[in-house]
């Protein structure tokens, strides 16, 4: 009889489609619900955040330039791959949060369903939020939503559903994002990164950082090449306020933190917050 050695997993960051360690070389201990050691996670630094923004910016042109239909297909593909790895995610949720089997299943189901729901919106959001405008002249005038650019997100603490709920609406509409995973539960976020890396999502569209929100978020909030800021996961009101102030310098679109029921049916607002409207006059009769 042979005894196998444990295969310990090294949780790294997810930046530009790669899984690099933190530039700083730091890591921090992640415990399970009972307080016993689970794994080490990378503790990202401001330079990792900078690299992630570069990757997101580089990916923006290609991702936003795809047809909405194609983006929907890719987001749906994430749901497919996630569905195929549901056992792994259920086990991770049970370990991380101490959920029972039924509860863990509920969250994984909800995460998959959430992705499918947003995937369906990819090629429909423009019809709902865009418009053909009546003008007093012989012109077409219409308004269409466009992605705003690179969005920095602080994810809420629900390790899987929380992350999916904030990332999916942002990327579905053509934005790219840098997301800081839940500080106490970062491992599932990196596993979700593996799902994204294997589901036709171009590298750099989603970049996942793990580490201290208080350390990384201010650099993203003040970054002049970031166009939107989602503060859903910021619990500390003072930090949220200072991040909002930092974001004002280049007029980022900011979504303020609030109490969220992650299991509740989603609305369009997470998508529309990070859309901007382009209105075009089109002369007729040429």
């Amino acid at each position, binding site marked *: 009889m042979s005894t196998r050695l444990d295969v310990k997993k090294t949780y790294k960051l997810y930046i530009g489609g790669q899984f690099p360690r933190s530039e700083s070389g730091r890591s921090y201990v992640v415990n399970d619900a009972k307080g016993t050691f689970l794994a080490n996670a990378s503790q990202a630094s401001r330079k990792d955040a900078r690299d992630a923004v570069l990757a997101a910016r580089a990916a923006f042109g290609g991702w936003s330039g795809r047809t909405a239909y194609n983006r929907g297909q890719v987001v749906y593909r994430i749901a497919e791959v996630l569905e195929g790895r549901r056992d792994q995610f259920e086990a991770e949720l049970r370990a991380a949060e101490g959920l029972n089997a039924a509860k863990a299943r509920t969250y994984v189901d909800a995460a998959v369903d959430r992705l499918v729901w947003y995937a369906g919106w990819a090629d429909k959001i423009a019809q709902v939020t865009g418009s053909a405008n009546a003008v007093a002249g012989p012109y077409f005038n219409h308004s269409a939503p466009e992605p705003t650019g690179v969005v920095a997100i602080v994810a809420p603490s629900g390790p899987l559903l929380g992350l999916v709920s904030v990332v999916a609406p942002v990327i579905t509409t053509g934005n790219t994002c840098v997301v800081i995973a839940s500080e106490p539960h970062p491992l599932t976020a990196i596993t979700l990164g593996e799902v994204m890396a294997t589901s036709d999502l171009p590298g750099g569209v989603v970049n996942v950082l793990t580490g201290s929100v208080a350390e990384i978020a201010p650099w993203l909030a003040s970054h*002049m090449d970031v166009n939107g800021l989602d503060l859903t996961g910021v619990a500390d009101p003072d930090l949220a306020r200072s991040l909002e102030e930092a974001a004002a310098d280049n007029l980022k679109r900011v979504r303020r933190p609030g109490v969220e029921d992650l299991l509740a049916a989603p609305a369009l607002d997470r998508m529309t917050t990070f859309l901007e409207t382009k209105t075009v006059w089109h002369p007729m009769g040429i």
Partner: protein
Amino acid sequence: MKATAPSPGATTFAQETASDAALRRFLHGLPGVDQVGAEQRAASLGTRSIKTESKRQAIDLAIRMVDLTTLEGMDTPGKVRALAAKAMRPDPADPSCPSTAAVCVYGDMVGVAREALGVSAGSTAGRVHVAAVATAFPSGRAPLDVKLTDTRDAVEAGADEIDMVIDRGAFLSGRYLQVYEEIVAVREACVRADGSSAHLKVILETGELQTYDNVRRASWLGMLAGGHFIKTSTGKIQPAATLPVILVMLEAVRDFRDTTGQQVGVKPAGGIRTSKDAIKHLVMVNEVVGSDWLDPDWFRFGASTLLNDLLMQRTKMQTGRYSGPDYFTLD
């Protein structure tokens, strides 16, 4: 040591440059380059950590060393004017930002560049220089008289500096004297009517020279013939400026000054796009040849996109937040 500008066919090397055979004997007598050693040394110098205050100075120095370049077939007077404006005031939002060393354009754009820079006759001190590429840039495949006419035209139009390409075909087939005499002839063509002379930069196009030994030989050849600068590349060939190549060239200018007392400048060009790259080069200059070369008169960067990255880093250090490409001009 007070350095003097080199003059063509410096007497020290009259014998070595007397015939093709003598020149070949001299160039092949230069010590060979340890390829692995050079690459290792370049890589290890690239790992230096440069801290805040040094970085601030390095970025400003690098901006002052930039030859802001546009060498495209689609260059228009408008683009050259925009480039000249950027060279004078790289960051319009910040008057403390230094101007670049020069703008580098094709010969027919020299007049436009001079006008845009507001250059009148006289001293080049304290203003952005106008550098022109000449001698059938970038291939150098033209008869000698065409190359010389090209050079004279650029000098006549008011270029302060001439970037010439060597004949790599002749060099690689061992006709060193031909290359030497061509550089000397171009150097003579740089002389203006009033007896002063445009500075000559000799482009070796190291990406086509195949070996570091050849880079060392070409460097010496360019210096023997009286080049004020030796420059890595046209920017049209990959690989262009790499750190090991710069290391070899810096060693050559150091040895040349030790032998002759004449200081020659070095200009990497092509492929240097980030502040980090630029700072690695400055570290290498300081380590290999010392601070005498840490000056725009003796070290230049031929670059276009590098300047924006330097400006972004500079803004980051001043404001404490990361900047983005949206806030700087595209060219």
